[in-house]
């Protein structure tokens, strides 16, 4: 055995000096990325969220009681069994959204002039916690309408557009998003769909040609938030224009995408000489990229908090497998389950912390990426353990449930978990954001060509 070295505290040289001795830092450096003498404080300082004051806590508790008593009477039960086909799923979604609109819990993030709006982020968090806790269906069909369409119109739309569209969303008008294209996924600004301004006797129109993909539930949508290119001059972000498209307009063809787990959550949209009145433009022509940022920033943290708590609740499905398969004294299985439980608890903690920080007005670059990667990896681990414990049983096809990530159909859940490491900014894109924006690592030089 090698002789242990013994303690050498008090004798450690400074890192910079060691690197200099070893020639890793040149003697006379003209460094591109110099060592910072002291780390930036923001990286280090542990977050101590400011405590909420007493009045606020009381108000939140009152809201919690109110939502609980509503859910005790109205929370849908058996919705999973009623969501075995896409059509049934859409029906349960519309019913539940309507009920929540009437109860005042569907759009807590909207301004106070709308019924059920004007809720603080802390209040929104309470509502979502309760909805998750009561295992209600997630609001999927109305998600793009109440978040993306709302934020876009509220922040960038003109008065007429707001008056025309926002009330209709509460009546159930459904929106989809026409952003991604076959050649523009992570690199969204590379879109090629063309919009050409033409005169018509009853006003100017944009004529649209192109193809959109990965549009969530576009097959059920009435309207579409569309990004199209009005110019190819200059940087690629500059020529993008933001339009509101009627999905029933001539030339719009929607084809659902059959996913590997049997769901059809996304669709392709083909655009063939579709005419959109110029009055349906949001913001100025060529300034659509900035509008798109409002769309994309519309939901920051509530969904992942809700999903994390739903996964926490669904750990019971894994526990049931362990019991059903007689593994309750299998220490290896118990350990693996324990690792998963802690992983899911930690995801709940980080999702909570992210939201609490936002409630206190703190948000830093990359925080959201960490929450997303932590959640999507935990979801993979959760479904992978279920799949493993389920064994051969899971290889026989069983009915899937639309609109749920933790269904207990472990093959479907496992495959569905890939949607979370890929969609909404892939895991790799998030890693890049964490590295470059949080850790301040250098970005690749512009115009890097292979």
């Amino acid at each position, binding site marked *: 055995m090698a002789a*242990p*070295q*013994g*303690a050498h*505290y*008090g004798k*450690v*040289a*400074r*890192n*910079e000096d*060691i*690197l200099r*001795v*070893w020639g*890793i*830092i040149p003697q006379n*450096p003209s460094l*591109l*990325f*110099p*060592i*910072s003498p*002291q*780390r930036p404080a923001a990286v*280090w*300082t*542990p977050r*101590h969220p400011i405590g909420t004051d007493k009045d606020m806590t009381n108000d939140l508790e009152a809201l919690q009681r109110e939502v609980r008593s509503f859910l005790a009477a109205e929370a849908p039960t058996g919705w999973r069994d009623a969501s075995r086909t896409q059509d049934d799923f859409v029906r349960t979604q519309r019913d539940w959204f309507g009920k929540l609109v009437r109860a005042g819990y569907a759009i807590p993030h909207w301004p106070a002039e709308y019924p059920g709006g004007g809720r603080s982020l802390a209040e929104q968090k309470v509502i979502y916690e309760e909805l998750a806790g009561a295992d209600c269906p997630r609001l999927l069909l109305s998600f793009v309408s109440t978040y993306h369409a709302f934020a876009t119109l509220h922040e960038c739309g003109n008065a007429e557009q707001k008056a025309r569209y926002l009330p209709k969303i509460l009546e159930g008008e459904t929106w989809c998003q026409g952003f991604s294209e076959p050649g523009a996924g992570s690199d969204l600004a590379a879109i090629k769909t063309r919009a050409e301004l033409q005169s018509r006797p009853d006003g100017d129109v944009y004529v649209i040609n192109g193809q959109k993909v990965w549009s969530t539930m576009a097959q059920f949508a009435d309207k579409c938030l569309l990004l199209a290119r009005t110019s190819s001059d200059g940087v690629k972000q500059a020529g993008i224009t933001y339009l509101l498209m009627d999905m029933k307009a001539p030339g719009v063809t929607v084809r659902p995408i059959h996913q590997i787990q049997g769901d059809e959550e996304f669709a392709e949209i083909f655009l063939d000489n579709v005419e959109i009145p110029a009055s349906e433009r949001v913001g100025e022509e060529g300034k659509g990229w900035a509008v798109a940022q409002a769309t994309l920033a519309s939901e920051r943290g509530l969904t992942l908090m809700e999903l994390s708590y739903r996964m926490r609740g669904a750990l019971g499905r894994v*526990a049931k497998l*362990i019991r059903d398969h007689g593994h309750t004294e299998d*220490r290896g*299985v*118990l*350990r693996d*389950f*324990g*690792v998963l*439980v*802690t*992983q899911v*608890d*930690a995801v709940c*903690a*980080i999702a909570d*912390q992210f939201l609490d920080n936002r409630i206190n007005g703190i948000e830093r670059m990359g925080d959201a990426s960490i929450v997303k*990667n932590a959640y999507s990896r935990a979801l993979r681990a959760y479904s992978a353990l279920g799949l493993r414990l389920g064994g051969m049983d899971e290889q026989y096809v069983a009915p899937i449930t639309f609109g749920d990530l933790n269904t207990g159909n472990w093959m479907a859940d496992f495959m569905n978990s890939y949607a979370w490491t890929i969609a909404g900014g892939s895991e*790799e894109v*998030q*890693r*890049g954001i*964490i*590295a*470059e924006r*949080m*850790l*301040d*690592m*250098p970005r*690749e030089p512009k115009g890097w060509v292979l």
Partner: protein
Amino acid sequence: MIELNELTDAAQKAFPAGSLSPSRDESWGLAAEMGWLMVRLPEEDGGLGFTREASTALHLEMGRVLAAMPLISAQLGLQAIAASHDFAERTDWLERLAGGEYAPLPMLSSKLTQGSDGTVSGTISGVFEGDMAVAVVAQLPGGYALVPLDAPGVSLVERPIWDPSRRLFDVVLDGFTPALMLTDAAGAKALHDRLSGEAQLALAADCIGAAGAALDMTIEYMKVRRQFDRPIALFQALKHRAADMKTRIVVAEALLWKRVRDESASVTELAAAKVLAAEAFRFVTEEMVQLHGGIGLTDEHPCHLFLKRALLNLQLCGNADLWNERVGRQALQT
């Protein structure tokens, strides 16, 4: 009540990030001077009466500089005595410890037997910086007791460890007669659970602080180390690994703070936070050595201090296998 961030700032000023593994004895003097030994002692006992958030913030900072000064063991030993209201010499000992004497709680389990004459023999393991100690707080067969190191039948043996940032000792008992009982056998369980939970949080904080420092150092290195005419920080494959290191730390830290603030959390739940933190620390330091390349293999560079501290922390107060199994068992029952 001092703000937590003030405590953190004071710690960062006293122990600057650039000076790793500072002298143990100087650190101890500094910590005693700033009242850190007393942060958790109730005010009526002459302490500062801070919450466990405060001790967590301090242990984070001590992990960050790889402190050898045994603040965790010292605070826990002090808490054990403070919690023992039936102990006749409680006040005397609290005063002595407040003055800078050291009576640690061991971080590993003991192997002890009680003879028919009531004397105790065997080994108390996991005593950090035992050469500084005047006594150890140990769970003997008859309950928790203070074991003075100068008592008959007590000897101290250093157990060389791979982690050079700390030193570890065994206290060997051979016919030791306990005199300073803190609890009886019945009261030992409650005290053990309380101290165990506190120890888990403290170790988790040490891991998170040190892991953050390891990541910072690795990123700095990647920015200055040039190969193929560019800093290696520019390679996407390496950037993504750094991002995963950051993610592991931030997520484990979030669970730690949540459990620190959850007064109703069970020992198992507190231990889960430690296991996640220690595993994150291990992951980060393994990556640290790899990403530093050749220099990471040298004794000269501090990489190995982080790696070895991580691997030792994993073993303290119950290892990952033990606690993961318990977490799984507990979740199965709820």
